[in-house]
């Protein structure tokens, strides 16, 4: 009997000592008695995916032997939400994954993603270092205003322009038009046509999918269209602006003939020089640089009246775990990724939401050259079109090829429906979405 007690006490003291030691020693937290492998899901698919892979590798390298590793799995974007939900429904959700600010309201409502305020606090994540705008976007006011993701980067849509085409048309690559009219002139001069058919687009467009949808979204916003009122009560404010913007896109194809519907793969098309002006996001930088494409990025011109563009914020969201002790480890990992996101925000993708990183003297000089990256960062100042944070959020997003908005607009691009009718349909559907909360 006494021996047993003796044993227990020794073991108790031993483990207490170990725990104490663990909390004191750097790099090994109290939970890390045994190795933990965090499961991370990513749907990144453009050239940014490569850089993100490097980030994860760097983490794993730095934490070898420290009991914490990340296993990354890539899920096709269109299946992402379904698979996460399916996994969560059976208690096997991944630990963390890529989220986009504003479109996960349903996941927050269902408890699939968890609020992070407390966790961030405990792990010492410096919230103050984050840009206030970024933090605001990461919150869902309807769900206790909780912070539902750790922002990783801010992306804005800006025009990438093929400098060879610019020079060919006699323009100076140091400048780019700031207004829509001049931009169209430039585009017209850079467009190559065979009779009436466009063989090289002045403005890179596709017949359906993301590109025309996001163009419409940005131009409409510039013209004064609001997808939802500030208080999220009214849908499609100023529908005439929305209709005019639809006409703008149609005119690109049919009136000014600077674009063609025949392109299906916009990334590849721009990369092979089939288009001159391509507004897209910083996730494309890596690939085009690798390819050696001669291009620069400029600020989105003012086409509709006010200079505005689309922005997207990506970040790490945490999925509900059955074993809640995993959250601490996940936060540890995400904190490291965020603290060390210099590579990500200079080579991989958008502007850093962390002031300390943005203000680093080498932020502008490291990574990809500022002339292709700078506009994405500077352009955040007028990037105001984001997501509508309601349950039906995905129906509202302008950067999508397959959602309700994109599919409905497709009928306009294909000439199967009139802009006025489609605008009415969209307004109707969106109103229902807003009413649902």
């Amino acid at each position, binding site marked *: 009997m006494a021996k047993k007690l003796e044993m227990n006490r020794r073991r108790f003291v031993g483990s207490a000592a170990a725990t104490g030691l663990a909390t004191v020693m750097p790099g090994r937290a109290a939970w890390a008695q045994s190795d933990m492998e965090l499961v991370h899901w990513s749907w990144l698919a453009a050239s940014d995916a490569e850089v993100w892979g490097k980030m994860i590798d760097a983490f794993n390298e730095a934490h070898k032997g420290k009991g914490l590793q990340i296993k990354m799995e890539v899920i096709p974007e269109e299946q992402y939400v379904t698979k996460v939900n399916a996994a969560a429904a059976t208690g096997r959700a991944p630990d963390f994954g890529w989220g986009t600010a504003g479109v996960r309201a349903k996941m927050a409502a269902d408890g699939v993603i968890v609020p992070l305020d407390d966790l961030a606090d405990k792990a010492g994540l410096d919230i103050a270092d984050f840009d206030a705008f970024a933090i605001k976007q990461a919150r869902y006011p309807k769900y206790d205003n909780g912070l539902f993701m750790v922002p990783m980067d801010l992306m804005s849509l800006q025009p990438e322009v093929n400098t060879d085409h610019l020079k060919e048309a006699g323009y100076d690559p140091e400048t780019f038009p700031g207004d829509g009219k001049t931009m169209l002139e430039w585009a017209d001069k850079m467009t190559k046509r065979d009779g009436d058919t466009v063989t090289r687009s002045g403005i890179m467009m596709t017949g359906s999918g993301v590109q025309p949808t996001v163009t419409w979204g940005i131009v409409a916003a510039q013209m004064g269209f609001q997808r939802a009122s500030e208080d999220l009560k009214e849908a499609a404010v100023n529908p005439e602006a929305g209709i005019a913007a639809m006409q703008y896109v149609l005119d690109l194809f049919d009136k000014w003939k600077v674009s063609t519907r025949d392109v*299906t793969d916009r990334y590849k098309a721009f990369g092979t020089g089939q288009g001159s002006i391509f507004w897209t996001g910083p996730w494309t930088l890596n690939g085009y640089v690798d390819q050696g494409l001669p291009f620069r990025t400029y600020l989105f011109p003012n086409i509709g009246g006010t200079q505005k563009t689309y922005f997207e914020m990506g970040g790490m969201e945490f999925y509900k775990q059955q074993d809640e002790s995993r959250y601490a480890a996940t936060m540890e990992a995400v904190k490291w990724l965020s603290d060390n996101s210099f590579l990500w925000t200079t080579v991989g993708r958008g502007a850093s939401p962390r002031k300390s990183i943005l203000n680093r003297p080498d932020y502008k000089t490291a990574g990809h050259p500022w002339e292709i990256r700078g506009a994405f960062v500077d352009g955040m100042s007028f990037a105001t079109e984001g997501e509508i944070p309601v349950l039906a959020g995905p129906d509202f997003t302008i950067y999508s090829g397959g959602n309700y908005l994109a599919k409905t607009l497709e009928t306009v691009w294909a000439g199967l429906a009139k802009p006025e009718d489609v605008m009415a349909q969209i307004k109707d559907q969106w109103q229902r979405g807003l009413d649902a909360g």
Partner: protein
Amino acid sequence: MADVGAVLRAQLPGTRLALKDVPVWLFGMFFVVLWAAPFVWMVSTSLKPSSQVMTPVVEWLPREVTLENYRNVMKYPIATWAMNSVIVAGVATALCVLFGAMAGYALARLRFPGRNVIFLLFLASIMIPPEVGVVPLLLAMIKVGWASTYQALILPTIANVLAVYIFRQFFLTFPRELEEAAIVDGAGPFKIFFRIALPLARSPAIAATVIVFTLNWNNFLWPLLITFDENMKTLPVGIAAFAPVVGSHTQLEGYATAMAAVTLLCIPSVVLFLALQRYFIEGITTSGLKG
């Protein structure tokens, strides 16, 4: 007077082709060549350097042959995908053929109530789009923790009614005497099946194997849904990533690489088919004729 008719009807030496049929033959062969053209184009493109792929003039023969596209494709875990396909299709086919043979034999030779109803139900199931059950199955697999596993890929593909059909057709024509000898010796149905019936069913077995294996190898929707990471993908799903509209690798890869990927994807099926052509076609026709 020369008998023109006879001349025209005369067959070219060593062939069954009559002179008058030569134009028809040429016409037909033209279309056969046309039918093969896409494959030729695929291989040709795969061997061209990507800068020479999108040319205004169509070049059937590459100006310069390069293997760089294949090297590009190899950067992806093709070998893993291929191995997955082999394991999944192999195991599923083996089980399907075995179970199909057993069921086909029983339905053809043994008497028990409901055997015709059972067979009709199996047949009717072909009309139901399996996509109805795909999402519930996905959820069930995740629930038991089998997401992205071999079991999840294999189990739903074991029960392929074609195998039952092929074996049943064959066993229906089986002469009774062979079994009766065994019965006199006191053998039970299982023994009869394994010792006598199955060994004699070599032809339908090979046919069923080849057909079912090809179907399993090319299976697309289910592996697309149930695989959650790169390493568990099967070959068709992995290579679909090169498709311009759908795929994720579009920014990085061009048509040349896509063609190389697809060529690689073709090779196993085509090789298998060429080696076992006779059985393949026999299998389809024996099941088809009686249908």
